[in-house]
């Protein structure tokens, strides 16, 4: 009997020990949704980075899932009701307020070492994650828009690289010919017209984001949009969203139709691929300076993940925002947010325009971080398009925009 008890006790001990050991070694699998570009080799780099992360963290497995931009957004929107959500997401900075309005994001500033990690990245880029007192993400990559120009077209028209917005606008009629349009602006949202408005001292919304009246329809904004309207109606500025039959910007650059465009880092890659002789400078200064718009992506986490998954996901985010991963991603076209990576010689070699973007990032502004931003920007894009195409006078169109935005914000 005694022997049997000893054997039983030993057996139970081994079972408990085995189970305990098994739990300790059990892998936590996290799902990572992203829209890194496969064509630029970013997914290959991501897979290498994931392998390195898994080697350093043998208890964590990362399953990455690629989705293109809109599919990523739609999947999270649907996932808010179905519960099918990832543990980590790397998506557009504009997703943060919208997803937070769905109440699915985890306030990752609650992690003890969030501040330490956040201090490693550009504060301006990380500002797109704050809502209220909490941060709902950590900057993953950043970008802003700088002025690209076709050197051959400028030389042929004997036009100097502009040093101010006024010089830029004055150059467009000179460049116009049967085969050249001075500039292209693919859309009319704040992503596009915001830099011109801000650089001239205008605003879109009040500082507390509660009203547009007196801001989007102020005299400064009216003057800026009137300038664009005059250029568009003279055929010196192309706008494929206002004229869907117009040549798109990438095709227009490749065929040397467009001489100028305010655009992000992807324009460098496509121009190089098209063999275009181009240059780039930060947005030329308006009366209040050179203020471009902040873009990029953030890492986000979700509430419905288990505690283990949340901790593992945070570890992965820290890995992806440290210098090594950021430099590797810079080599395939993702502009780093990590401060050390921004100064890293390998990153600068891989992205020759990095110093230009860095200069522009010093003054770039984020679009307002409010849940209704997608609708606000649609109103602005529609009304600015009406103004630029001459469907309405600029003042009337912008007054209507202010009224519509205020109605939306008041709901």
């Amino acid at each position, binding site marked *: 009997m005694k022997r049997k008890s000893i054997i039983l006790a030993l057996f139970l001990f081994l079972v408990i020990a085995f189970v305990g050991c098994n739990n300790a070694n059990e892998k936590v699998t996290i799902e990572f949704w992203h829209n890194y570009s496969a064509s630029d080799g970013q997914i290959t780099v991501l897979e290498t980075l994931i392998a390195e992360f898994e080697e350093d963290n043998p208890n964590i497995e990362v399953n990455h899932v690629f989705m293109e931009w809109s599919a990523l957004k739609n999947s999270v*929107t649907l996932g808010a009701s179905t*519960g099918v959500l990832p543990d980590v997401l790397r998506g557009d900075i504009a997703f943060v307020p919208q997803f937070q309005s769905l109440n*699915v994001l985890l306030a990752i500033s609650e992690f003890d070492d969030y501040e330490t990690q956040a201090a490693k990245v550009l504060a301006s880029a990380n500002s797109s994650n704050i809502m209220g007192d909490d941060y709902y993400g950590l900057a993953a990559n950043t970008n802003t828009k700088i002025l690209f120009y076709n050197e051959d077209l400028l030389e042929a028209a004997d036009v100097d690289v502009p040093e101010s917005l006024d010089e830029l606008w004055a150059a467009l009629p000179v460049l116009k010919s049967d085969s050249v349009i001075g500039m292209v602006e693919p859309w009319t949202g704040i992503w596009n017209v915001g830099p011109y408005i801000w650089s001239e001292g205008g605003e879109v919304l009040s500082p507390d984001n509660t009203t547009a009246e007196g801001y989007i329809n102020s005299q400064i904004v009216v003057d800026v949009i009137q300038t664009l309207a005059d250029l568009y109606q003279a055929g010196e500025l192309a706008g494929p969203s206002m*004229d*869907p039959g117009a040549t798109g910007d990438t095709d227009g650059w490749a065929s040397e139709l467009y001489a100028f465009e305010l655009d992000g880092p992807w324009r460098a890659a496509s121009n190089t691929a098209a063999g275009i002789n181009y240059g780039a400078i930060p947005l030329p200064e308006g009366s209040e300076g050179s203020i471009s718009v902040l873009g990029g992506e953030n890492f986000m986490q979700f509430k419905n993940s288990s505690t283990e998954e949340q901790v593992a996901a945070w570890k992965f985010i820290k890995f992806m925002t440290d210098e090594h991963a950021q430099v590797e991603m810079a080599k395939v076209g993702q502009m780093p947010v990590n401060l050390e990576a921004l100064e890293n010689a390998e990153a600068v070699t891989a992205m020759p325009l990095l110093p230009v973007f860095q200069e522009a990032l010093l003054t770039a502004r984020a679009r307002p971080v409010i849940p209704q931003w*997608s609708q606000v920007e649609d109103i602005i894009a529609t009304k600015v398009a009406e103004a630029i195409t001459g469907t309405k006078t600029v003042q009337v169109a912008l007054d209507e925009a202010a009224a519509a935005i205020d109605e939306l914000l008041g709901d």
Partner: protein
Amino acid sequence: MFIMSFFDWNIGFQQSSPYIGLENYIDVLTDPIAKRAIVNTFVYAIVTVPLQMIFGLAVALLINGIKKFGIIFRLGYYLPVITSWVVVALLFRYIFANTGLMNYFLVDVLKIVDGPVSWLSSRWSALASAMLLGIWKGIGWNMIIFLAALQAVPRNLYEAADVDGANRFQKFFYITLPSIKGTITFALVMLAIGAFNTYTPIAILTGGNPMHQTEVVLTWMYFQTFDALNMGYSAALSMIVTAIIMIITVFLFGITRRKKVA
């Protein structure tokens, strides 16, 4: 969906969705873009449905009357049906672009206009481009449906008509059309439903631009659902579209039934 349309539906995690009665329906019916989208969809349906059927029936009659190469013609006309909407819509976008094929023919070859026409930059010309695409892509489907119906018309009716000295038009209007009336009704209803579900041609040709002038109900519904997250509004819009389709279907079947009784 019906229930959702009476609530300020919040899709988010653990969020409440207050009951707001008919407010979503009022929002839709007072929204100028929604009204424009419904009108555009009606115009698309009114133009594309009859033209697809007329051309489809004409092609079916031609192919039904030939002895050789019938299979080749059937295949040729049916190819657009099995081609991806996205691919052909992109092709049409290039054809109707300012520097596209259509303007090349009009300006450089035929020299009947001075400068390129901005087909996709105004509401009606952009919709006309989308309608042309819809008609071109739909002819093959109508041809197959009508060809099957034509082959089921009893030969002896035509032989009797020949004996009575009926000409080709009399045979078409007094024998062929009445014999395929059921197929015509079927095609009419299916195409009307299809026209109200049109999305890809507009999404790719114009994206609803410029300034939401070319929105149709589905592109506007998609925007409200996934960009604006207005689930209640979208549900109300979809219920209104469902009601419109039901009314049209009942009306079309009603016409056929009344004629049968008469």
